[in-house]
């Protein structure tokens, strides 16, 4: 990975992590990411408008995660950052996942008296499109 052989030069005070600053810097990746973000926004708009039922949320989240990854890696320079910086951000994401997973698991496994008034429960929840309740598989 490292091609640095400058450790013997006392005037060179650059930290290894700052070496990318010394290369000729191009704005091209930023425009590429911008176009990709426009594309994914159009994609999330078009798929979102279809109301694809069960898969709608998964598709929306996958597109949003892709967009965020592009922003974090290129716009926020995480691609060129030190491991410590990346670790901090990834750690926060792990805790977001823990928070969401256990909270939603709790809510999803409650019994009726523990749900808020008026919230649909069990068979009252939205059914797959095109099927009436008595047509549903057991």
């Amino acid at each position: 990975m490292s091609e640095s052989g400058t450790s013997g030069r006392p005037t060179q005070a650059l930290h290894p992590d700052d070496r990318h600053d010394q290369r000729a810097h191009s704005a091209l990746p930023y425009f590429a990411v911008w176009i990709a973000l426009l594309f994914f926004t159009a994609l999330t708009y078009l798929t979102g408008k279809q109301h694809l039922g069960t898969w709608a949320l998964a598709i929306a989240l996958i597109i949003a995660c892709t967009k965020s990854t592009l922003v974090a890696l290129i716009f926020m320079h995480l691609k060129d950052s030190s491991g410590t910086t990346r670790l901090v951000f990834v750690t926060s994401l792990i805790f977001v996942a823990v928070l969401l997973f256990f909270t939603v698991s709790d809510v999803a496994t409650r019994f009726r008296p523990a749900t808020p008034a008026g919230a649909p429960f069990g068979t009252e929840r939205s059914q797959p499109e095109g099927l009436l309740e008595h047509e549903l598989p057991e």
Partner: protein
Amino acid sequence: MHPDAAGLPPGILGHHFSSLARQNEAMRLGMWLFLATEVLLFAGLFTGYAVYRFQFPEAFAECSRHLELTLGTVNTLVLITSSLTVALAIHYARTDRRRAAAICLVITLLFALTFLGIKAVEYAAHFHERSLPGKYYAYEAVKIPGAAMFFSVYFLMTGLHGVHVIAGMSVLSWILRRTLQGRYSSQYYTGLELGGLYWHLVDLVWIFLYPLLYLI
């Protein structure tokens, strides 16, 4: 005097850092730690959103379809493009084109104002049709349990995001002043970079808010 500080404007390199590179790395790490706490702050609201969307799937879908999808989509494009102009401002500063960097920051601030203006139009419509949180909810178009909760979540999430847009604008204005003073160059631009990181986080949050609120 520090050997690193030669050629830098005064007051940039702290005496407690052995080199500018170490100071830059410490600044970046500090900023990312702050951004991690911001992610967790928003994660609380996203979790609340997940809970109530799970409890009231129909109400959330129905209310979402009564939001102004066009305005939300335009705002997404505005924020994405403002992220590009901030990234370009940093790029121009680190290649010693201060004028271009300042122009990019001004454009970013204009985009931020556009975003807030569009959001204000949406909020005005919500107040007019009374699609408001909790007990203030009296929206004629959607009358099912959970609709008031959707708008509570909607106002909390877009409201906290809006506060971040205003905070980001303050940070970027301050950085614009420093850019015009000539404090950022190829030798030192970390302050500008950190302000940009904050703005990108504002964009990141909106990337998730847009499909979750407007496109259920």
